[in-house]
Every structure is written in C-alpha cells, then in structure tokens.
C-alpha cells in the first residue's frame, strides 16, 4: 500500500517537473516587435526620426531613418514589446544582438543604457513626452544619469570588426520582468568625440537583424 502511494507521488512529481521544464523556453524578438523607437538629434530637437543625415546633392543634410549613424549629439531609443514573456516566469538569460555596418574614428565604442524616465508620444531631443504638457528630459537627449538613463551603462561595446555584437542584458530584463523597474527600453549612444558608428536601420529594411533573445522559466518549483 505504501509502495503504491510512493509510486503515485513519484509519478505526479515527475509530471509536474516535466511540465515545468517544458515551460522553460527561449524566445527571439526582432525589431518588428519594437513597441517604441525614436532617433534623437541635438540639431533637430523636435524630430523623433533623426537617425542619420547621410546623403548627397539634393539629399545632403536630409534627416532620415534609413540608417542609424550614432554619434555625439545623436542617440537612439528603443523598447521591445515583452508581452510574450508570461507572468510568473523569471529571466534566466537575455542577450541583445546588434548589427554593425561600419564606423569612423579611432577606438570606436558605443554605450547601451537602460532608460529610467517614461518616454513616448512626441519623444525628441528636448522632450520625453509631448501631450497636453511638454515633459522635458532632465538633460536634453535623455542624458541625465540616474534620472533619464541608468547611472551606469548596461554595456560599453568596443568595436574591432564589423558584424553583429552580442550584449548580455539579463540584468535589465530581470529588473523589468520582476517589476523592480519600469520597462522603458534602452538608449544607444556614442560618448566620444569624432566617432560615428553605423548600424543598419531597425526601422527600415533591417529589422530582422536587430534581435533580443530571452530565456525564461517558471519562477519557482511548484
């Protein structure tokens, strides 16, 4: 009788464990799943699509989003939709894959920051929200450390060759998933003078090359 009970309990436990393991999974998002994005530029302080000024002849100096040229005075805000991560799950690993086309300048590096301040409609270099009221960034370009963006960067990426770079963003995803911080996405910036780093545009025809890979599992063994 006792053996039978033990066997039954073992079987139930095994089924629960199998279900739990099946629920642990990895999803891959790309820039088509961005819920918000904006290119901010100091000299175009009201634009939200200022990602480059590449162009010649009659197109010279035209702002557009066909490429992302990060440089001092121009940054990029983006937030993925995390609706596919079910509640009651914890992040085990997350990585952001960013494609790099080329760069100009010496010792190129870019910064990835977790954004702290709420941003949305009307976001631009000067404002983080424009509605009935205009809400400014603490410092223009979301530059306020510890107020607009986190006090320290999620990553500083030094470039040695073109191609994709992979950034561990587990801690940021974990904060958002646990509700310890509001999900306001990330900011990409270049802080060094005379450096420009070119990314294929996530808003144009290279959306699939910007990836966020997230692994998660149920929070605790039942």
């Amino acid at each position, binding site marked *: 009788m006792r053996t039978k009970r033990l066997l039954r309990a073992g079987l139930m436990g095994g089924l629960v464990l199998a279900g739990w393991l099946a629920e642990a999974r990895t999803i891959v998002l790309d820039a088509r799943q*961005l*819920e*918000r*994005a*904006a290119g901010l*530029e100091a*000299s*175009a*302080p*009201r*634009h*939200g*699509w*200022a990602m480059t000024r590449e*162009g010649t*002849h*009659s*197109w010279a*100096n*035209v*702002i*557009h*989003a*066909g490429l992302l040229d990060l440089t001092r005075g121009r940054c990029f805000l983006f937030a993925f939709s995390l609706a596919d991560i079910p509640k009651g799950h914890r992040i085990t690993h997350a990585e952001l894959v960013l494609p790099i086309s080329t760069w100009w300048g010496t010792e190129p590096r870019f910064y990835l920051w977790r954004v702290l301040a709420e941003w*949305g*409609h*009307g*976001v*631009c270099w000067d*404002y983080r929200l*424009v*509605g009935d009221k205009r809400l400014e960034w603490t410092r223009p370009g979301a530059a306020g450390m510890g107020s607009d963006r986190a006090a320290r960067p999620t990553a500083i990426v030094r470039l040695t060759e073109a191609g994709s770079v992979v950034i561990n963003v587990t801690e940021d995803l974990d904060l958002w998933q646990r509700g310890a911080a509001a999900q306001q996405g990330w900011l990409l910036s270049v802080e060094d003078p005379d450096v420009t780093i070119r990314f294929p545009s996530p*808003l*144009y*025809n290279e*959306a699939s090359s910007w990836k966020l890979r997230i692994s998660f599992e149920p929070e605790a063994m039942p």
Partner: protein
Amino acid sequence: MMQKVQGIGLALLLGAAGWLAAQEAPPVLPKEVKLFAATGAVSVAVCDEQGLLAAACRGAVSGVQLWKLDPDGVPSAEAVTLPPAVPAGAGALQVGPLRVLFHPRQPVLYVWQGCVLPPQGAPERQAADAEFRCLVVYRWTNNAMETVGSFVGGTHAFLHVGAAALAVDPEGRRLFMAPLRPVGATRTAIGWLDLDAEGLPKQTPVLKPGSLDNRGLEEFEMAWHPYRMDVPDFGDQPLWSLVAPSATVLWSGTPNGGLFIFDTENRRAAVAYCSVPGIKSSAWTMLAMDPIRPQFFGVGQYWPAIFRMAHAEGYPTLLPETRYEEGAACSSEPVVMTTEPPRVAVGGGRSVHAWTSDKNGRLGGERLVWPVPSAEVRAMAWSVRFKTLYVPAEGLP
C-alpha cells in the same frame, strides 16, 4: 413530367426575379456618404462655415465647379463654374484646375491652375510666361464667389504640370503650395505665402533687382513672391500631396512610400524624410491629417495598404501602424471621417474603402467598401458640420 416542367419554370422565374432585383438594386451607401455629379474631379473641398462644396474638374468640362449646400448638407442641383484667371494677351489658353482648398476659417477659396503652354515664340506664349498666375483666390461675398486676384507666376511656378497641391495650417496663417521652381539644383520646391486675417496672401519683402548700392546695402520691395524650400530629388513628381499640421511644419508625400517633413523654422533640420515600411517603395504617398487626434494617415497610390502615424505638434513620432488589405487599390488622398466609430475613407476603383478605427484612432476595425459609379475616385472631402463624405461620381442624373 408535368411536375418537372413546373419546377424548371419556377426556377427560371426565380432566377429572372433575382437578376432583375440585382440590376435594380441601388448602391448601398450609409447616410454619411453623398455622391454628387462631377466628371473628372481631381480635388474636392468643403467650406463648412458657408456651406459650400467645390471640385476641380478635368473632364469634358474643365473648371472649378461650386455647389451651395442646403441646411442638410445636400448640394444644389446646379453647379456654378468659376471663371479661370487667364491673362488678356494669352488668347484661348487652355487652362485647367489642379487643386481646390478652402481657408479653415474664412470664406476664401484657393485654386491652383495649370495651362497648356503655346509653342515657344508665339505671342500667347510670351503673355502666358509673363502674366499667367497659378494661384487664384476667390472670396464668398454676397452669396457669390468673387475673384480676389491671382498670384505666383512662371518665375516661381511651373505653369504646365499635371498635378499640384495646396495646404493651409489649421490656424489659417500660411498657404503652402507645390510644385514650385527650385532655388538650388533640385527639380522642384515647396513654398508658401503668409496669409492675413482675412485669409488673403500677404506680400513679402523681396530684393529689388539691381538694388545693391555702393555701400553694400540692399533695397527691398513688397511682392507676392512665395518663400521656397527645395525638395530632395526623386525625379519627376506627377503627384503631390501636402498637409500642414501647423504654420511652421509641412508634410509632403513622396514617390516611394514615405513623406518629407519640412521645418520652416529650423534651418539646421529643414528637411526630414520618413519611409514607412509596408508601403510599396514605388508608390506615391498621399496624406491626410486627423482633425481631432494627433495623428495622420497615408496611402500609397494603387497600393492596397494604409498607415497611421502619430505626430506631436506636427513632428511624426514613434512607429507607424500599417494595415494591408488585398483589393483596396487606393486612388485618392485619405479622408478622415469624424464619425462614431471614426473612419478613414480612401477612393478606389468604382468604390470607396473605409477603414474603421478604435477610440484611440488605431486601424483595428473592419474595412467597408461602398460602391461608386466612377471608374476611379480620385478625390473626396469630409464635412465636419454635416458629418458627410462628399464623393464625386460620374454618370449620375
């Protein structure tokens, strides 16, 4: 045998009745859609304040036609054809309207007209080059439309073009226009004239030719010369769509599924370009602003998709939303219908397509198709006052 014959007879009778019913069935249109007889309408505008409907027609009869709307918004049975502005020395110059637009607050109608230019060297050509003006301004006075004047000649405008666009900002401070002659090395420009409180074009200070005196000071005179900004070159542009969300920002559709944003106040960021994924890269973009929510809509000409994008004080913001609908080949600028639920109507082949949006303006709802007896609907207008979509139709009695 007898039963079989009776059965066949009954089936034939029912079939014939069904066919007849189908032939006689009137087009099913909701009460907020009104067809009006206008052949070859390329632009339609409504003046809510005065109850006026205008159409630029380029059919068998080429000209601007004007209808008075009754208290229920029904157009008068007969239209009045407005006289085009033709220079005295230009003889029988062939003139046709390309765009009509009412001032948002004043009873003023702006018409952009083009002409077929006589051969080089002909006296009529010289008269046209010197005196033909593309912008004609009319004012509704004493229950009639009177001509105020004509502006913007061949020095600044292309006289012989197939399409043009006009836009006024919601406050009625500036009248934007295109295409104009470029200032630099591109093919075209957009431009504007400031408007006075009555909606009439204001003169601007322009450099007097040969006015540079020996102290290096320039002299100016007042003239109706439009301010101009060059348009980045996409090649020839046979379609123009302009929207002025404010007196300082202007949107212009581009020939590749996107829009230009002209900022007339920031010389360091004067032109921006926004390409919308999901709109064919060779489709001419036609635009319309939502009069209530801070958003706008766009379609690619003959492309079965519509996009919605938010704007903040005229600057497009965040990501566009695109809806693709098989069979909805768009042939007109979108028109935002302030109905409940809100809809966005777009002309198509023998039909008008209407996308339903939710309370936030998103294009989440159904798409309705309303039949129109015209090969192609190229223009429509919405009246906020009469809650009516005016659709020009051919072949109406």
